[in-house]
């Protein structure tokens, strides 16, 4: 498996292979057809599968999700695209009150195999309405599954799993990772939803992160290894359901843990991770669960400010140094 493709190509390949394999799969979204989507996630698919199955929609996020819900509940496997993650707010009712709840409200009789795809994350000077990491909002909603891959291999396997999944999933592509290259098998494969990946084993401290942040953490871990600081790095990959077991097990071993994400710290998913860790591994903790995240403000446009807004490799390194320096219990 020496073929390297990019993160967004891995996404595209998963969609293409599932569409070829299963004629109930179709895609709909703004500018995804002829143009292939603003991130080129859907490039070439309309040419291959036709306008009936790769649909350019009006700018109507509510109806885009509704299109997916109605088609899914009646036997198709829709993939519907919300261009930027910030725009889920425009369609929030259809996501939160319709897609997520239909099965339960209907006493189980509905099945909603819907995949929602979107681009999240900051670092492109795209300002307050095109840079957010809003995963905490959707992870709080029973009925949804939330996925955020950090590399091309995971992207293909997780996207394939999303499409085959019989529940509404939200696949968040990190905009800064679109061009990231990595080895990706050509044949279709699934990575089960809800399984974390331990990117690196270590004994001194656990870092849990997702999206671009976990890659930063991984690089920091490699660097610190040279100094004898042994960092375990965990990427949950699926944020809902969250693979708490893997995290807890790691913390029971390392006794120290930092959670890092791009989203705002207050009420971010890191809070849930921290809360669960202290519940499940209370007696194993030598230090409070650390959280590294964006401060409490909208995402600023200015690159100078945004650089301070997003957690950086430096911040992660410092946080690791601080937590391992803290005397144990």
């Amino acid at each position, binding site marked *: 498996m020496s073929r390297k493709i990019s993160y967004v190509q891995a996404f595209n390949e998963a969609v293409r292979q599932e569409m070829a394999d299963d004629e109930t799969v179709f895609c709909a979204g703004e500018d995804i057809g002829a143009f292939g989507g603003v991130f080129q996630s859907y490039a070439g698919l309309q040419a291959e599968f036709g306008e009936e199955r790769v649909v350019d929609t009006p700018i109507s996020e*509510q109806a885009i999700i*509704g299109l997916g819900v*109605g088609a899914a509940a*009646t*036997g198709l496997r829709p993939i519907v695209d919300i261009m930027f993650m910030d725009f889920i707010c425009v369609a929030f009712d259809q996501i939160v009150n319709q897609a997520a709840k239909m099965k339960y409200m*209907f006493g189980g009789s509905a099945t909603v195999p819907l995949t929602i795809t979107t681009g999240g994350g900051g670092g492109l000077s795209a300002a307050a309405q095109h840079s957010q990491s809003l995963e905490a909002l959707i992870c709080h909603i029973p009925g949804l599954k939330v996925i955020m891959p950090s590399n091309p291999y995971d992207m293909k396997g997780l996207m394939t*799993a999303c499409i085959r999944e*019989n529940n509404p999933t939200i696949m968040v592509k990190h905009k800064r990772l679109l061009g990231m290259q990595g080895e990706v098998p050509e044949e279709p494969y699934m990575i089960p939803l809800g399984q974390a990946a331990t990117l690196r084993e270590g004994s001194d401290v656990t870092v849990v992160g997702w999206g671009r942040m976990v890659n930063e953490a991984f690089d920091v871990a490699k660097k610190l290894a040279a100094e004898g600081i042994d960092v375990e790095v965990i990427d949950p990959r699926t944020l809902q359901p969250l693979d708490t077991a893997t995290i807890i097990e790691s913390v029971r071993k390392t006794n120290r843990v930092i959670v890092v994400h791009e989203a705002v710290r207050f009420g971010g998913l890191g809070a849930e991770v921290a809360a669960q860790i202290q519940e499940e591994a209370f007696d194993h903790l030598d230090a409070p669960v650390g959280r590294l995240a964006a401060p409490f403000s909208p995402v600023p446009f200015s690159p100078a400010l945004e650089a301070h807004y997003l957690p950086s490799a430096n911040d992660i390194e410092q946080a690791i140094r601080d937590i391992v320096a803290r005397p144990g219990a």
Partner: protein
Amino acid sequence: MELSTEVLMDMHRRMVRIRLFEEAAGQLAEAAKLPGFLHLYVGQEAVAAGVCATLSDGDQITSTHRGHGHLVAKGGEFRPMMAELMAKSTGYNKGKGGSMHISNLDVGMLGANGIVGAGAPIAVGAGFGNKLKGNGNVSAAFFGDGSTNIGAFHEAANMACALKLPVLFICENNEYGEFTPRDQTMAITDIVDRAAGYGMPGVIVDGMDVVAVHEAAVEAKARALRGEGPSLIEAKTYRFYNHHGVQNLGLKYRTDDEVSEWKERDPIFTFEDRMVEAGNATRDDFNTVWAELRADIADAIQFADDSPAPDPEQLLVDVYTMSTEGAAS
């Protein structure tokens, strides 16, 4: 259009079924036997009956907070419906949905909906599915006058038109949204004026006349199946009871005169009169129908009464579909 006696009697039966179900539900609510909110469809029976008489189980409808009428008209059975309203485990939704989410996918009823306007995009999704599958089915979205002011309606209408989907938009204009008259919330008198803005035909029908509704629906369905896209049918109608529950809440937002004028035009009784006058049926024929259905209602209430409440262990069941792949279609 000449309708056969069979079709006419079928529509009558649908109307009487709604009337009896709703009256019974109202009485049960007054006797504090129905938890939650209850929005009765009494007075509007001709709309659901006229439209649904043109549909088969393979055709889908979406509904509103005022949803039992639609489900009855679409072929919903009394027993599981009454059980659902009473929050019993034998209900269509196993007691998890109740009045505002009552549904039955087997007869193509994709749910009452607690969010005004939210059903329409879902009907568009079902319509998209029908078109892609080429199954010759249509979907119909029922919604109130007030709901045409919300964004989801607009997006759904436009998308269905842009994609030329086989969808029927059925507006039940009862002149009020809750306690506020229609003319305070829009500067137009006829909802049908909105149709041109989407590029679909719109027609006003007497919503107290099941035959008129039926004719319009037949035409809209034929157009949809010819691949010409959606239509908007505005049925002028009236709800005989309060927005929710049975009694007015003290506030006189409608005059007694207005209410009784509309009651003069009762869709069932006026239909019966016309049928008798035209020699298409006798009073006896109708009495038989009422008597038979009254017995069914009594049976359904008994059934619901005897049914158990959901077991607490059901609380976390059906939040997610537990299988992957293939369960949808």
